[in-house]
């Protein structure tokens, strides 16, 4: 199983949000896409999923992904959006069975094979105990796991996840990331967009760092999570060390940034305005450095 993107780009109206991205992910690999807000992480995932069309080629096992009919594609590749409506009253068991949609005929109950797939997805995510609970009454962490079970029930070989740990406490963040690592170890290709750089470095085999829609770096966490790249892409000061516990690289962000930090960057400010908030990017409410 192999997902390969060549020269993938995208624009919304006139605005180029992604350009020239090359990425190959093999089965067994967990790749984290990181970058500032508006860097194009979600757009890249949606391009890889086939939901968005644009310049570049995306190959699934060597075949053009855009030529695969949506239902057939959904049996091989699954994507989980960052947000889904939370007010769903479906019990978890029925929700997870939605993942069988691309496998099922229009009418009729779940087949034995469908039920096995649902059962395995529930087991893999540790949600077997939640089957009767309505989705709307679950906690944030339980919801995320139930949704993960839903896309797993599609039995995909490629799994794309947009911010799977968003809104979760640290316990559930680790739980979800461990789960993704297991799913990759089972032979799936897993690509997830993440905000937490240290979480990405601890779990991902490779990190892809985006800035303004372009790949700044791609490689093992030790090559991507570096002081210079963090400074260049996020405009922050950080100390990067090896985690004493895991050995993976770990960034300690220097708060507050030292006086004169902005001017000492040495690189010109590339952002005029952030795409998401309209604020200058990297200006996260930190006090302006005095001259």
């Amino acid at each position, binding site marked *: 199983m192999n997902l390969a993107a060549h020269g993938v780009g995208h624009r919304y109206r006139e605005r180029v949000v992604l350009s020239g991205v090359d990425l190959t992910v093999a089965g067994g690999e967990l790749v984290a896409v990181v970058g500032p807000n508006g860097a194009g992480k979600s757009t890249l995932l949606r391009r890889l999923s086939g*939901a968005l069309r644009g310049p570049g080629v995306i190959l699934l096992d060597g075949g053009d992904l855009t030529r695969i009919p*949506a239902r057939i594609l959904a049996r091989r590749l*699954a*994507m989980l*959006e960052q947000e*889904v*409506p939370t007010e769903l009253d*479906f019990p978890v068991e029925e929700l997870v069975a939605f993942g069988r*949609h691309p496998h099922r005929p*229009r009418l009729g109950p779940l087949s034995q094979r469908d039920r096995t797939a649902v059962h395995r997805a529930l087991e893999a995510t540790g949600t077997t105990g939640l089957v009767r609970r309505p989705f709307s009454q679950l906690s944030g962490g339980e919801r995320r796991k139930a949704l993960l079970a839903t896309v797993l029930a599609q039995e995909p070989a490629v799994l794309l996840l947009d911010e799977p740990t968003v809104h979760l406490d640290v316990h559930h963040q680790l739980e979800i990331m461990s789960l993704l690592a297991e799913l990759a170890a089972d032979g799936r290709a897993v690509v997830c967009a993440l905000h937490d750089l240290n979480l990405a470095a601890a779990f991902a085999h490779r990190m892809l760092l985006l800035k303004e829609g372009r790949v700044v770096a791609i490689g093992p966490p030790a090559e991507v999570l570096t002081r210079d790249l963090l400074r260049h892409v996020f405009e922050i000061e950080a100390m990067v060390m090896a985690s004493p516990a895991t050995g993976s690289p770990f960034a300690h962000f220097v708060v507050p940034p030292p006086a004169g930090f902005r001017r000492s960057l040495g690189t010109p400010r590339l952002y005029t305005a952030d795409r998401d908030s309209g604020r200058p990017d990297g200006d996260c409410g930190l006090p302006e450095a005095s001259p």
Partner: protein
Amino acid sequence: MKGTVYLVLGALLVGGVLAGVALGATAIPWGRLLSYATGDRDALSPAELLILGRIRLPRVLVGLLVGAALAVAGGVMQGLFRNPLASPYTLGLAGGASTGAAVVITAGLAQGNLWSLPGGAFVGATVASLAVGALARTRRGTTPLTLILAGIALATLFSAATSALIFLANPQEMGAILVWTMGGLGRATPAALTYLAPLVLGGIAVVLAFSHDLDVLALGDDQARHMGLAPGRVRFALLATSTAMTAAAVACAGPIGFVGLIVPHAVRLVLGPGHAHLLVASALAGAAFLVWADLAARLILRPVELPVGLVTAFLGVPFFLYLLRRGGGR
């Protein structure tokens, strides 16, 4: 649980049909009905047979189909727009159908051609559903609030248009439109069944084939797309089908409120949100509800008939409020 619900609905349906045929301004004793049904051809007088065959049976059948159509259309719209307030009424479809039918009556086309009235209603309902779809669309899809506001605005507009047509019509047509806008099964004829039955039964079949899609669509368009669904196509097919069902029901019985809003809600509170069961049970419950409501409308002030819309409101709303209170603690 589900079995019990279907059993109750089935019993209500069969009971409603039997009572709807037997009871009315002229009561026909059960005993004689039964002996007629078991082979005694002389048990009923020719006049009674005429009442049964030409008036009551068609009326009951039309009631079943109209009730099922409105309830299923409401259930589909609530799922389609992810909006609990959606219904043929609140989205202006019933209003559009009324205006379309009123145009046909004013133009003098309603007599003679069986399909002209449902045709006018269908055109009106289609205009309404296209308009509500276009008006409610914002940058990021349709929000629940804009949808309902657009629907209510359209319903008001159509109601004004219908009033204008009544105002401009000659006295005879005026009476015809007025009676028709009150809604009711009183004018049900066997002929109406020739368009009502295929449209409603066919519509229910189409909608059931999309019940899994409606479920998955609850996850939002983006997520549904990742699961192999084409939200635009599903929406179009389902909206077209429910528009046709609404138009057929309104052309036949005039606008009858509450059935399309309340029945699917009541069913959802009891059976849960899965659309396969929701739509089947809504069809049964809508059919039974309208037949019983029509029976009440015929009997309460016998021999004067009440508009059935009054009864659906008086029966339906308290029951709905009860379910809402009970379901709220679930």
